[in-house]
């Protein structure tokens, strides 16, 4: 159902755009293709990695590491994973869904997703170059605190 709505939106948008400006529509499609090709290497790699990880780690292990009962340690593992890795959202959400299916807790998954999106240790030097070290460090620190708050709240509400 959800997928159909998406397709309807995309096709409708394309038709509207095509009526207004062919050239721009072509550019939009090229951009779509390019951004897809952009994430493809990481997407394929992560899909394989997730497949292997989930076939080797059984549900018991995953829920021990990231499950509801993993508590603070699980949160910590999720936070480090999220803050250090650079996984695009299009790859992270399926990964998060697989982990949830395999027994991870909502709090831990929210921690992972939130830190992944807002905190970037690897890109900190780059961020500092644009905004200066102080502002960049502060932004990441605030984002980390926020991720913790969101994780504990979501974990509490959804469990």
């Amino acid at each position: 159902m959800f997928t159909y709505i998406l397709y309807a939106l995309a096709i409708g948008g394309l038709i509207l755009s095509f009526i207004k400006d062919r050239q721009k529509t072509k550019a939009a499609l090229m951009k779509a293709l390019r951004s897809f090709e952009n994430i493809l290497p990481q997407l394929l790699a992560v899909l394989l990695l997730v497949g292997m990880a989930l076939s080797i780690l059984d549900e018991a292990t995953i829920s021990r590491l990231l499950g509801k009962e993993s508590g603070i340690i699980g949160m910590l593992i999720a936070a480090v994973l999220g803050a250090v890795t650079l996984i695009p959202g299009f790859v992270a959400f399926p990964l998060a869904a697989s982990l949830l299916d395999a027994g991870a807790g909502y709090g831990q998954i929210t921690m992972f997703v939130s830190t992944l999106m807002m905190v970037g240790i690897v890109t900190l030097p780059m961020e500092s170059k644009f905004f200066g070290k102080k502002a960049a460090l502060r932004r990441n620190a605030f984002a980390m605190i926020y991720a913790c708050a969101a994780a504990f709240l979501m974990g509490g509400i959804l469990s």
Partner: protein
Amino acid sequence: MNKLKAIVKRYRLFLLFLAVNLLLLLFAPEYGAAAFKKAGSNLKEMLSILPPIFILLGLMDVWLKRETMMRLMGKGSGIKGAALAFLLGSAAAGPLYAAFPVAAIMLKKGATLFNMFLFIGAWSTTKIPLLLFEASNLGIPYTLLRLAFNLVGIVLIAFLLERSLTEEDRKAVAEQAQKN
């Protein structure tokens, strides 16, 4: 030849995992087969939902004029400017580090620090195509709940960041942004 090399380099992580998975299939067929099956079914699901998302993303990128919006987010733009910053960040595409140069240009063209941090926050977590994707993977209740927290969190972070930086810090940020 060089092109092939570039492709191999881009896909090296994938090729590495593929090799590991093949080895697994060879020496531990049970695990290897299960891994491939899992990856295959995930890939199929992905390929059914990604095309419309990327088309929407491309359309937004082409039709949204960045320069005009930037003008609207400076001092005195108030709630309207803040809302615009939020929307612009949400309509964007790409990883967070791609937002930094855009945010620097916004600052350079006169957007306020608060609006710029709102923009970065929105870019990082409330991107519309990504929300659609999140909902399809983790369900609508989870996505809406996280979105609600995110809206509060992003505004709070932007507010605290602007407040916690002294006048000197702000000048330094502006100067740093000018350099790029």
